[in-house]
C-alpha cells in the first residue's frame, strides 16, 4: 500500500449509543446516509484523506461502541488518538447530559493535549429537538471546546466539523514542531521524516505526537 500522505491523524468518535456516530462517519467517508445502520460492536474505523492547506492529511477515524459497558475496549483507543469528536443527539436530552461524562472519560484516558470537539447530531429533526443549540454552545464554552450542530442525514456541517478538527490538530502539531525544531532546519528535517514515514507510518506518528 502506497503511503503517500503528509500527515496521519487518528480521530475518535465517542458518545452515547444511537446518537449517530456511525452515520456521521459514513457520511464523511462515503458521503452517503443509511437509515438502517446496525449498532457498532467492538471497534471499526474508516479512512479519508483530505487536502488541508496543500497537505494531504490522512484521517483515520475510529468508530466506537456507544454503550458504556464496552468502554474497556474503547478507552484503549483514547491514548493513540489526536482528536476526539464527542457526539450527542439533539433529540435526546440524556445523551447531551452524558457529554460531561464522556469528557471526564477523555480526561482520564486520553493524552492531555488531545483536540476535542462537540457535535450535536440529528439537527435536521427540529420537531423532536430537546436540546437547544444555545445549551450546546454553553457547554462548549464551559469546557473550552469547539461545538457545531450536524446532521449526517442532511449532510450538514459534517465535512466542516472534521476539517476544523483536523486543522486544529495540524496547527497544534506544527506549532510544536516549530518550537522544538526552530528556524531553517525545520523544512529539511521534515523532508527526511516524510520519506521515512512512507515506510513506517506508525513510528512516525508517535514521534509526532511526542514532539
Amino acid at each position, binding site marked *: *500500500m*502506497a503511503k503517500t500522505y503528509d500527515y496521519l491523524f487518528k480521530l475518535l468518535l465517542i458518545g452515547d*449509543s444511537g446518537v449517530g456516530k456511525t452515520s456521521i462517519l459514513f457520511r464523511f467517508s462515503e458521503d452517503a446516509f443509511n437509515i*438502517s445502520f446496525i*449498532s457498532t460492536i467492538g471497534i471499526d474505523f474508516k479512512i479519508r484523506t483530505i487536502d488541508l492547506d496543500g497537505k494531504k492529511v490522512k484521517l483515520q477515524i475510529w468508530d466506537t461502541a456507544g454503550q458504556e459497558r464496552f468502554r474497556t475496549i474503547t478507552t484503549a483507543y483514547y491514548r493513540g488518538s489526536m482528536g476526539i469528536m464527542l457526539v450527542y443527539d439533539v433529540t*435526546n436530552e*440524556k*445523551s447531551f447530559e452524558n457529554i460531561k461524562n464522556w469528557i471526564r472519560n477523555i480526561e482520564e484516558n486520553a493524552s492531555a493535549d488531545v483536540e476535542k470537539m462537540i457535535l450535536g447530531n440529528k439537527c435536521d429533526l427540529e420537531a423532536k429537538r*430537546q436540546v*437547544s443549540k444555545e445549551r450546546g454552545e454553553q457547554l462548549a464554552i464551559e469546557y473550552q471546546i469547539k461545538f457545531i450542530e450536524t446532521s449526517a442525514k442532511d449532510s450538514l456541517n459534517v465535512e466542516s466539523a472534521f476539517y476544523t478538527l483536523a486543522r486544529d490538530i495540524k496547527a497544534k502539531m506544527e506549532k510544536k514542531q516549530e518550537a522544538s525544531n526552530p528556524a531553517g532546519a525545520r523544512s529539511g528535517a521534515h523532508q527526511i521524516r516524510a520519506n521515512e514515514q512512507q515506510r513506517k507510518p506508525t513510528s512516525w506518528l508517535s514521534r509526532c505526537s511526542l514532539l
Partner: protein
Amino acid sequence: MAAQNKGEAQEMPAATSAAADPGAENKERLIAAVKKEVKQLMEEAVTRKFVHEESGGVTALCGAVEACLGQGLRRRALGLFKTSSTTALLHKIAKHCPEAALVSARVLAAEGAPATRSASGVERRPSVPRPPLCKRGSGSLLSGSPPTSRYLWIRIALFERQLSKIIEHLVNNANRYYERDALVADPDYGSILSSLLVGPCALEYSKAKPPACFWTDPPADELVQRHRMSAGTTTPPSVRRPILNFKRSLNASSDDGSSNNPGTSKAAGSSAKDYVESLHQNSTATLLYGKNNVRVQPKDIEEPMPGYLSLHQTAAGLVIKWTPNQLMNGYAESEGIDKSALRCHLVHASACQHEYVLCSLAPTCTVYRRRCAGPLCIDCVYWAMSLQVCVWEVVYVHVHRSQASDALILVGQDGVQRPPIHFPKGGHLLSFLSNLETGLLPHGQLDPPLWSQRGTGKVFGRGKVRRRPLPSLCESGETEEPEWEETAGDYVFRIVNNAIADREAMRHSLLERAVQSPPRTPRRPLASTSTTSSDSSTMSVDCPPPSAGINGIPPPPLTPIPHQPVEQAASIELVCSTMRRQIISRAFYGWLAYCRHLSTVRTHLSGLVHPNIIPRENADGGLTDERWLAMTDEKGAIHDKDEVYRLVYYGGVQHDIRRHVWPYLLGYYEFGSTAEERAEQDTACRRQYETTMSEWLCVEAIVRQRDREATAASIARLSEASGKLKPTDNNDTSEVFEDDCSVISDNPPIVSPEPSETEQKRPGPDKPLLSRAPSIDEVDNIELDSERDKETKQNGETDNGDSRELDVDSLKDLEDEDVHLKSVVENPDMRRESIAEIKRLAEEIVPKGDVRGLLCSVDSAQLNGSEFRSSIDESQPSPHQQHTSVIITNPSVDLAAGGSPVSGGTTAQVSPARSPLGVVREESQSAGASFDTLEPADRNATDNRSNCVSPASSNGGVYSNELVESFALNLHRIEKDVQRCDRNYPFFTDENLDKLRNIMCTYVWEHLDTGYMQGMCDLAAPLLVMMREEASAHALFNSLMRRATDNFPSGQAMDAHFADMRSLIQILDCELYELMHAHGDYTHFYFCYRWFLLDFKRELLYQDVFAAWELIWAARHVASEHMVLFIALALLETYRDVILANTMDFTDIIKFFNEMAERHDASAVLSLARDLVLQVQTLIENK
C-alpha cells in the same frame, strides 16, 4: 532455493531499516522498493482498469526511482549549481538522448507555466495536468510544495512512456554520471532498474478524477483480488509448512529460509553453488548461527561491506564464515539465468589456518555477467574477500560496543587481528556470542563465560529469553535486548581450548569409549542442551549439537583438515563408531526437542480440543431430513445424540429441519425426550414467557408515561429558552416539569410532536398535583408493596406459594386493601378503564397462547372493586398465581397513583385534557418500534386505553424507583438496537422486530442485574429467524446466553479467547505470528472481538451463520469446546497471504476484516476450521 535466497536478501534490509547504510545493502533496498512499487502499480492498473496520474502508487514509484537515480550521482558531472539534482541530470543527458530531450522540454514547459500560481498560494486542484516544479535539489524550498509536484520529471517521463528508455541510457553511460559504486553503474541493478520500468511505462494514465478512490487505501476486496492475481497457487500454510518448523529462525536471525534445505543439487565438482550451499545446513557441517547483512571491512576496501555471517560446527570444529552479499546474490541470479555458464573454479576452504579463502582464478573464468566491467572478474574479487576462520585458531575475541554498531574482532594465535565484523544493532552480536559459546562446548569455553547461569525461559515469548549475563558484560541484572543495546563498552573473551587434551585421552581409550557410555564429556551433559533448547526452542531440532562436540571423537576423514593431526592409522572402527554416535545423538536431540515442543503444545492447547478424534466417515451429507426421521423412534424421541452431534459437526443440518434440531443442539430439549414431553415443555415455557412478559409490560407502561412527561419537560424548557410561548403559562408548566424531570431524568424522553398544543391545553391548577413528589408514607407503602409483589412473583414462579409468612403480610394486605378500596370507590371509572387496559394488554401479549386464566381473572375483576379484591385474595394460593400477579401489579399502580384521593381524582381529570391519545400515537410512530403493532386492530378501545395509561403516573407504582429506572434504561437501549437490527434482511419487518424486542425485554427482565448489552440483539435475531416464534426463540436464546454471557465485557472469556488465539497462531502459523509479534498492538487481537462476541454473526450471511452456529454447538460434544477459536483461526488463515503480502499492521487488519464482513466463503472457512481442529488434535494425540 535461488529465488529464496534472493528474496531474503531483498526483504531483509527493508526490515532492518538500515537506511544510512551505503553499499550493496542500500542498493538492494532501493531496487526492492522499486520492484514493490511497480508491482503495486501494475496491480492497481489491472484491478482498477486505469491508473490515475495523481495516484499514490505513481508518486511512490517515482519516489523510489528518484532514490535509485540519486544514489551515487556524481556531483561534478552536473556542474556547479545543480548539485545532485536528477532533474539537472535529465537536462544534461538531453543532449545525447532524444527521449530525455523530449521529457526535458516538457518539464521546462510545465515548470514555467504554473510556478507563479503556486507562489501566489492558490490551492491547486489535483486535476491540474502539470503541477509546477520544485527543483529536486532545493530541498528547503520544497517543503512548502504540495506532494503532487514531487518527482516531476520522472512523472512526466513515466506518462510519456520514456522513463525506461532514459534510464537505460543512463545505465549505459553510467560511468559518465555516476560514481563507481552507484546503483545505476552496477551492471546488474542498473539493467534491472530499467527493465523494471518497462511495464509501468506501458500503462495508460488517466487524468480524469475518479470518485475519490485514489486517495484511499485499497479496499479489502481489492487486496484479495490483487493477491489472487499475484499468487494464485499458494497452498495453505498447513500444507506448506510442517508444524515442527515453527520458530526455526530463532538463531539464524535472518530467517534464512533455505537453510533447512540441505544440498538439493549434488552436482559434482566444486562450484560457487556448492560454496553457498556449504553455508547452509548440510551433512558435513551444522549451521549454528546465520545472519545476513553483517558488515566486514576486508583488506583493500575502504568501507565495510555487508555479507552473510555464519557459524558452522564441522567435524574439525567451529568455523566462522563470512561471505559478501555480492557473492551470495550474484550466485543466486546467475544461477537463475544460466546454470551452465557458471564455471568459476573455487578451491574450497580446506585449511583452517588460512583466514582468506582465495579462489584460484582460472584464465577461462566466464562467470555469467552481462557487463563484466573490471579487468578482473568481480566474483573473483569477492571470493578473495570472503572470510573463513577456524575458531580454534582464535585466542581472543574482542567485543567493541558503541552507539553505531557492535564490532567483533578475532585475534589469532599469531597475534594477527582479523578484520572487524560489524553486527547490526539489535542483539545479534549477543546471540552470536552465545551460539559461539554453545558451539565451543565441550572442548572449549569462553573465559569469562558469557552467562553466569542459564535460566529456563519460557518457550513462548521469543526475544524475552531471561538469562543473566555476567556483570562484566552487562551491568543490569536481567537483560532484555534493549538494555543490552544501550550499554556501550569493550569486552574481551579468551577462547580456552581443551580439545587437544581430550583428543589425546580419546586416542588412548578409543575402543572402550566406543562401547562404554557415558563418554567423557563432563562439561556437556544432556541437561545443558536441554536448557539451551528450551531457551531457543527449536534450535536443536534443526541444528542438533554436533557430534564432535559430544564426545570429542575426531571427525571422519571426509574433509581434509590439515591443522588437526588426523591419524592415518585411525581404524575403520573408529570411523564407524563416530558415525554411529553422530546418528544416535542427532536422532536423540531431534527427538528430545520434538518431545519438548509437544509438551508445550499439550499444556497450552490440550484444553482447547477433545483428545479423542471422532471419525468423519459418511457424515458429509450432514443431518438430513431422512436421517433425522430414521433416528426418531415411534414416540418421537431421538436417542443417539453422539451421532447427531457428529453429523452436524461434519455436515451441518439440512435447512428444513433446523427448527427441530436446534433445540437439541442448544440443550433446550433433552435427547430421549418424547414428543409429548417436548410439547409439554413448550407449553410450560410459553406460559412462563407470557407471565414474564406481562410483568415487564406493566413496567413499560410506567416508563412510557415518564418518558412522555420528561419529553414534555425538556420541550417546555426548550421553548422557554427560545421564548416562543406566552411567558406566564410557560413559567408554570416549566416549573412543574422541572420537578418531574428531576425524578425521572434517567429516562431518555421521547418527544411529542405537538409540544405547544399540549401545554396550552394544560389547565393551570394541576400544577401542584402533578409535581408533587410522593409523600413519605406513600413511598413506604409503595416499597413494601413492591417487595411483597416481587415475593409473590417469585413464589408464583417457583410454585412455593405456601411458604409465605402470612402474619406479617396479611397485616400489610389489610392496610393496602383499605387504601385500595378507597381509591376504587372514589374512582370507579378509572378502575374500569385500567382493568380494560390490562385486559387489552394481556390479549396482545398472548395472542395465541393460553390466556384463559389471565382473562378470567381480569374479567372477574372488572365487575366491581370488591370482587376484584376477592379475586386477588383468592388467587394468591391458587395455581393460577402467575397470571394473577399481573393483576396485582396494575391495580397497585392505580393504588399508588390514587393513594391520596385528591391526586387520583385529578389525574383522571387531567388525562383527557392532555389528549394522550395523540401523544401516544405520534410517539409510537416516531419510535418506529413495536408499539403500533402491539395495539389491537380495532381502535374502539383506544380511548379507554389512553385514559388508562395515565393513572400509572410518574411516581413509580409498586415497583421501586430503581427497578423502573433500570428497566427504562434497558428498554431504551433495546429499542434503539432492535430498530436497527438487520433491517436489510427481509425477515425483519416491524412485526418481527417487535418479537425481537419482546424477547430482548423478557430476557433483560429476567436478568436485570446484567441488563441489556449491545450485541444481544444480534445473537437473538438468527434464533428468531429460525424458530419464528417468540417463546421458543427466547428459550433458545436463554441457553445460548448461558455460554455467551461470559464473552460480554462483564465476563472473562474474551481475554481467554485472545490468549488462546495467540497460542494457536504461534503453533500453527509461525510466519503470521512473527508478523503479529512485530506489531505489538496485535496482542490485543481486537479485530477478533466482534467475531467472538457475536459468534461470527456479523461476519457471515444468515445462511452461513446458521451453519457456523451449528458447527460451534455440535463441536462442544465432538471436537472442541472452543470451536470459535478455530473458526477465527480459519478466517485468519484464509487471508494470511494477503495479510503477509501487505504486511498489515493492526489497523490495517481491523479495516480489512471489517470490510470483508459477509463476503467470506463460509463453507471453505468452516471446513478449514475443522481441519485445524484435527491438526491440533493429532498434534496432541501424537505421542
